[in-house]
């Protein structure tokens, strides 16, 4: 189903993107105010279903790569998005039909909507991760052998850098180095996709999923009603399992930066009880253990939410004493293939264990 983005969609999509970010993906605030201003100026932002894409054209993957803190100072400009999309258009062997989000989790879930307003291109309802992950090559397109080339990186200063030849992993490393020179943040357009590749490999419907999640937790009054609405929406509309695996207070939060990532763990304890849950994060929440046994793992989405409002918390916003619930949302099928699990399953992050799907052993 295709739809036009409305003002009333923005806040729910932002909440939903943050929830799907599994603790990472960056802050959505600036995207929210810019989108709201763009719609108020009369821009149209069409969201289309992958099934409606013309077979002869291309869809490109868009998003920012770099340090989220930079976007809190050097705000979105817009010209960098237009320049990158124009540069990519000139290199495609066919018409550019649409944009798709590299990662629906966090700020990047909303970036294609801004780019759409500025270029007139529609946005495919879907993305390449179904959540947020630390690296740009953690996309389903890469898992299925699609090349990221050409990759175009731009900055607001007007620089346009194109990577013509490299493996996906090398392109990621080169892209990071370029992003550093561009001020630790670059706008990237990559993975030119044919319509059949979008249909076969993208995680479908994640923009409307984000909106459904945001509405479910934003509209009813009371924590239980919100949780019920969320569970019901995900199960009935999408057949996605969501489970609350824990509720309590944050009793410990340790973090440190290693190899360019914010790593650490959170411990949550039941008030006056002995039960506790430990969640490890590397920007995103990756693994949850109760009493030493694994209860949830990547690529399932582990969301730590405010106990009352169900507003999702990012890993850098976790503080001692917060009253929280831990929800686990089943990963989309595209992340549960052997190839995908090899890249984003527990072992890819250094854990000597296999993916434990939510609902499996419960």
């Amino acid at each position: 189903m295709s739809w036009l983005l409305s003002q009333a969609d923005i806040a729910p999509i932002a909440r939903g993107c943050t929830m799907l970010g599994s603790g990472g993906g960056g802050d959505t605030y600036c995207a929210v105010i810019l989108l709201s201003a763009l719609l108020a100026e009369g821009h149209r932002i069409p969201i289309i279903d992958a099934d409606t894409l013309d077979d002869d054209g291309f869809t490109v993957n868009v998003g920012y790569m770099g340090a989220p803190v930079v976007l809190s100072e050097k705000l979105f400009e817009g010209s960098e998005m237009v320049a990158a999309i124009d540069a990519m258009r000139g290199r495609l062997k066919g018409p550019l039909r649409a944009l798709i989000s590299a990662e629906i989790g966090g700020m990047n879930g909303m970036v294609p909507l801004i780019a759409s307003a500025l270029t007139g291109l529609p946005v495919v309802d879907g993305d390449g991760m179904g959540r947020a992950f630390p690296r740009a090559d953690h996309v389903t397109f890469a898992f299925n052998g699609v090349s990221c080339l050409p990759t175009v990186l731009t900055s607001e200063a007007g620089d346009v850098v194109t990577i013509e030849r490299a493996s996906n992993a090398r392109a990621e490393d080169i892209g990071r180095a370029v992003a550093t020179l561009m001020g630790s943040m670059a706008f990237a357009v990559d993975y030119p996709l044919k319509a059949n590749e979008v249909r076969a490999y993208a995680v479908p419907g994640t923009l409307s999923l984000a909106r459904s999640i945001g509405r479910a937790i934003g509209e009813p009054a009371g924590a239980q009603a919100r949780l019920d609405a969320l569970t019901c929406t995900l199960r009935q509309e999408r057949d996605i399992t969501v489970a609350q695996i824990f509720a309590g207070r944050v009793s410990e939060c340790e973090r440190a930066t290693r190899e360019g990532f914010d790593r650490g763990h959170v411990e949550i304890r039941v008030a006056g009880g002995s039960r506790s849950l430990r969640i490890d994060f590397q920007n995103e929440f990756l693994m949850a253990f109760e009493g030493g046994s694994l209860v949830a793992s990547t690529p399932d989405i582990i969301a730590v939410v405010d106990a009352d409002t169900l507003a999702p918390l990012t890993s850098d916003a976790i503080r001692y004493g917060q009253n929280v619930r831990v929800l686990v949302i089943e990963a989309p099928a595209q992340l549960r293939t052997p190839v995908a699990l090899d890249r984003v399953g527990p072992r890819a992050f250094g854990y000597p264990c296999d993916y434990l799907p939510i609902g499996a052993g419960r």
Partner: protein
Amino acid sequence: MMRIGLDVGGTNTDAALLDGTRVVAAVKTPTTADATTGICNALAALVERAGPETRSARAVVIGTTHFVNAVVERERLNRVAAVRLCLPASSSIPPFIDWPDDLRNEVRADVHLLPGGYEVDGREIAPFDKAAMEDVARRIADSGVPAAAISGVFSPLRSDHERAAAEIMERLCPQVRVSLSSDLGRTGLLERENVALLNASLFELARTTITAFRAAIAQSGLAAELFLTQNDGTVMPAELAEQAPVLCFSSGPTNSMRGAALLSGRSDGMVIDVGGTTSDIGMLVNGFPREANGVVEVGGVRTLFRMPDILCLGLGGGTRIRTDPFRLGPDSVGYRLTSDARVFGGRQLTATDMAVAAGRARIGDAVGVADIGGALLSAFDGTVRSMLEDGIESMKTRAGDLPVIAVGGGAFLIPEDLAGVSEVVFVEHHDVANAVGAAMAQICGEVDRVFTDMTREAALAAATEEARDRAVAAGACAQSLKTVDVEDLPLAYMPGGARRLRVRVAGELADA
């Protein structure tokens, strides 16, 4: 050194005279519509209580809610021109974009975006354009606006461009008062810029208010120097406060917490200040309120600057109680407590009445609450307990029991045994803790910016030295300075071992 602390609240103006750390005398007087009269009355009452030695006080320190109220009420604000040094970045999201319409209409004048600002590693985004800034300064001068705010990308890291713009303003339109985002706010361009804009919108009010405060001191026959309390629990000379009224926003709860520290002789623990309508809970760390880490909304505007982390609960001495079914608040009889509460012969049942009925307080006439039964009292006790215990738990930063210091006019509402609390400390002068806190008159200096390509130790040493220099410049005695807060945040995805360091030092007011 004798010092007078004054806390001008919505209902009461409290005053305390301190000699060193000893409370010589304290008084509570009603707040008046015009600030001068209320302060004169409070000072007169203090002189009457403490005698003529009051007049030898060297400093009068005032905590006031004038400035934050003006923002919340959208009144008495002046117009502000915005200058942002950012191009070619950040132009899609201009200054004032996320302000509530009514406040924006009241404050916004012209908005100018110019080349400049810095990358996260300190390189220039674009060179500062002197000619363009001179043109903007002339246009601001012609527009007749009284104030301007200057912001720049990553200015907490490097403020050279903001300062260059300020120098041009000073040269070409000296009549326009200017506030710089790098002097006030933290990393986060929109939120820091909002702080500078709000600050500039208060310049005229700050000048008239401080003039009125000075007049009140002179009329009261005092030769004392005027200071204002600021959000972090320290004080600043009136001349600096006139430049930075936003730093006075949260002086009420902050002063109570500082006063609680002095009155209890403790530097760490949880402080609960129970007023007439609400209770403020905050954590004392090294004798100062812990600062909020994230965005704080003021009058609907997102800000990111030095503000205390305060949890406000709907429990005060005047909080109304419904009996069928039992419900606590959220409304309060407020300043009408002494006429409307049952123990004062009124008809409203309040939290104070419940405390009197339970024998926890002796206020007014207990006959008015003789009919309150045990079931109601235990419902009240249970609700208050869970409210406070929940609040205390969510304000802690680590596991373990902590002492609670109970202050404010309604301190008697705090039960002596609370879960998660090692002891509840009740103190003398608890009802004027805010004025006592104001009179403590410590001076501070703070640094908050990103350090790259340095070891943690070298970065910490550099930050501490900068913070000490700032404190001394604000009037602190260098020998008395102590580091009161260090926060070290390694930055993800950034090369060169980048870390954001925040260091704050505080010390005694230097002898003149």
